[in-house]
């Protein structure tokens, strides 16, 4: 296990380096003068020249990338023009709510998807299976942003059960753990809208994996030893299915991080996704760059976690 972790961590370095290269490279796609694009048409020539020097636009790109990377490692992502504060501060301040939302959604998606997949596999080719298959198809075909609107309409507007926007109720001044119930009430709808699509994908892969695992010889052998059915399902089959779908769960984390952009916009959730949309609208390219970088790194780390978990579940997996 230790050897595996070491190898896997070592493989992380080139990927992270590649991610920084892509983020840096995408921003050089900006047509025309990046300084002009950032500052807008009304900037003074002095400010433009200053920013050009700051961005190192007169230098060749490998040199620029080197400087940018060095600054990055020192925690300096530049200064956001729209928020008038360092990008690093703005991004890190918004990271928590996004991780909370995406994490809750991932948890929901795994629970729903696994339950649906196992249920369908147990009732393979019967009515329950067809129903789950249909639900899964709807899940993967739903626009997440549309689902969010429907949920707001139903639970916030018509039924009035849950708040439609924000992360906390502004006028409550609870401290510590007392904010939790209010936070959960705000979290439920956005997390659900984000989770359902991923749950569809996990349910679909999970069903196929569970059909495979339940037909395996060692499951039949467990029955031949007189082990109770619920134990076979919840210990042997569940672990087998989890080990198989762990990479898919890691990939879904990426979908959730991307989908958070819509959901945070719809639910006015104060996270990185909404900040990104605002930053794009404001042409605040440095802020976009910082936000994208931090989310991409988070995704890489989540996938690292998924790989480690998979190895923990199934020791036969190797670091590729």
């Amino acid at each position, binding site marked *: 296990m230790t050897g595996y972790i070491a190898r896997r961590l070592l493989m992380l370095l080139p990927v992270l380096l590649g991610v920084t290269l892509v983020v840096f490279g995408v921003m050089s796609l900006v047509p025309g003068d990046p300084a002009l694009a950032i500052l807008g048409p009304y900037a003074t020539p002095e400010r433009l020249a200053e920013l050009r020097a700051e961005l190192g636009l007169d230098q060749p790109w490998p040199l620029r990338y080197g400087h940018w990377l060095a600054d990055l490692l020192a925690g300096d992502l530049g200064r956001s023009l729209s928020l008038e504060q360092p990008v690093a501060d703005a991004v890190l301040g918004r990271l928590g709510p996004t991780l909370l939302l995406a994490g809750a959604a991932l948890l929901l998606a795994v629970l729903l998807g696994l339950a649906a997949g196992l249920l369908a596999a147990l009732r393979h080719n019967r009515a329950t299976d067809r129903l789950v298959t249909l639900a899964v198809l709807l899940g993967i075909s739903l626009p997440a942003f549309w689902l969010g609107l429907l949920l707001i309409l139903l639970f916030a*507007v018509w039924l009035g059960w849950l708040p439609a926007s924000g992360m906390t109720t502004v006028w409550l001044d609870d401290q510590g753990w007392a904010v939790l119930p209010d936070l959960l009430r705000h979290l439920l709808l956005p997390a659900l809208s984000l989770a359902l699509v991923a749950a569809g994908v996990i349910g679909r892969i999970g069903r196929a994996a569970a059909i495979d695992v339940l037909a395996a010889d060692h499951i039949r052998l467990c029955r031949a030893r007189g082990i109770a059915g619920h134990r076979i399902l919840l210990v042997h089959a569940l672990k087998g299915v989890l080990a198989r779908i762990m990479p898919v769960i890691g990939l879904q984390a990426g979908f959730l991080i991307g989908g958070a952009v819509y959901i945070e916009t719809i639910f006015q959730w104060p996270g990185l996704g909404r900040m990104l949309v605002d930053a794009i609208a404001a042409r605040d390219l440095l802020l976009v760059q910082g936000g*994208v970088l931090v989310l991409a790194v988070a995704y890489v780390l989540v996938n690292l976690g998924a790989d480690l978990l998979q190895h923990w579940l199934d020791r036969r997996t190797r670091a590729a």
Partner: protein
Amino acid sequence: MSGAGTTPDMGPGLSGRLRGAAGALLHHPGALTGLALIAVVLLPALLAPWLGLPDPAQTEPARRMLPVLSPGHPLGTDHLGRDLLSRLVWGARSSIAVGVLATLVAALAGGVLGLAAAWLGRLADTLLMRAVDVLMAFPYLLLALAIVAALGPGLANAMLAIAVANIPFFARAVRGAALDIRHQDYIAAARLSGHGEARILLAEVLPNLVPTVLVLMTTTLGWMILETAGLSFLGLGAQPPAADLGSMLGEGRAFLTVYPRVAVLPGLVILVLVVGINLLGDALRDLIDPRWSGARRRSRGGQPAAGSPAAPGADLPAGSDEGLLAVRGLHVAVPSAAGPMDAVRGLDFAIAAGERVALVGESGSGKTLTALALMRLLPAGLVLRGRLRLGGIELTALTEPALRDLRGRRLAYVPQEPLTALDPLFRVGFQLDEALRAHAPAQNPKSRGDALIAQVGLDGVPQLRRRYPHELSGGQRQRVAIAMALAHGPDLLIADEATTALDVTVQQEILDLLLRLCAEGRRALLFVSHVLALVARVCERVLVMYAGRIVEDGPVDAILTRPAHPYTAALLACSPELGRPDKPLPAIAGQAPAPGSSPPGCPFAPRCPRVQADCRAALPGLDRMEPAHRARCLHPVSRTPGERAR
């Protein structure tokens, strides 16, 4: 599964396969539903200019937010007085066009990259695939977002961003498929016949890639439409006054609470379209690329057969001296295209307490199904008929909990394949404890487990309990499986080809172990094998099975030295013997009859060297040759008057 499915070497040509798939699509319920859903959205979108709809961009503030079914506006108007139906149709047209275009761009660029990686040698492959890995380390919506941020908002830029973000996915899939093709025989053949690389690529590889790429495109088109709609929803795609479904949703959001239909309807159109595309994609994938339909093919219909116990009071008087196990009229039916067929056809036999019996036959004779039927562990869909009594208990009448109580405690099973007998994800100790706890709640399983480990001769293996199955040899795994089967001192141990997958020397060890453990504990053994020579060492009695029936039943020395049934004699003739490496091993000519085919007469007649006219007339009964020796033959090898034993 191997990639050969994508590129069958000998199958019909590409056009034939595609035509076949197109034909099959029209009989596939999912595909038909999908096509219908797509048509509902696509046809109006295609015909939009000729439908006589109002101009979708024509604002008319005086007629804003007209309700549904207003004159001239079947779905009403939006906040600027624009006709909603017309906007939906034109918006769908724009969304579909952008999605299709993005898919084409991604498929083309990804295809070229993937093909280059597969064909240009190691270095190109490594470089390209590392780049793909890095791009795939990005949540791809985020990548698209970054690209739009750099290029600036707009429908064309959004399309490009979505396409670029999906290129790595296509590149990786096409590379995999191309590598598969590269290793096919017909490529080597083309090389040998002197064709250049360019010609091979164009004439052999590209056509065979088309199905894969087609499936990929259909399965991703839905995503592409969702994602471009998403960017438009955020205001980064279509810019007013132009509109696609996503931007309509985005604009309608502001009026969600008062006029929900303005935002809800575009989403519904997207949903219908994407569900249709995904249904069609799944169907295409099933039909063109068999690799994906594994789960479907493995599926078996129906419930685990609950077995219909024979009518009460059938030929088995309760409490009679029936020994440990009594089997009467056992049938197992397997599902087939032509309906259920009996693979086991009326088995009658008994096993006394402590008796060691072999069940021998070729593969396909029904012996493994018999073993599974005794455990009541037949795969789902197989139907069991007949009576199975174990120590006076009718197994076919038991519920699943009652069966669970018997399995492992009175009836135990050692499987053929030690590789799959243990759960690969749990340590040996865990599985051993679990087997011990299955019937005796937590009575110091550790020490009982250690005793079992010693009993099967594994006490010399260091750290055995902490090991995973893949860290053991085949023989060691089989010993663990035997230890678990013996955990509760069963009355009957069923060993289903338990030594077949092992090396010869290990085979002997395991046989000795089984013999010792059964003899020590006065345990009955049913030893299922296809090798007649193996059973002499372990068993006292032999049952020979052919085509689902017992054809001979007798003491082991009688069977081995003077077999009555020609089939037994043939089996003996083709068994290797220790110490006689030069013995010729003739195969039995002909093939066993297919399950379900039941011409009148003896089923072995077509292969039998001693066949006579009356053999084909009626099925012989299982007749007594000697007091304990029965055979199903009209002209047995050694016992018919006037014939000498061979």
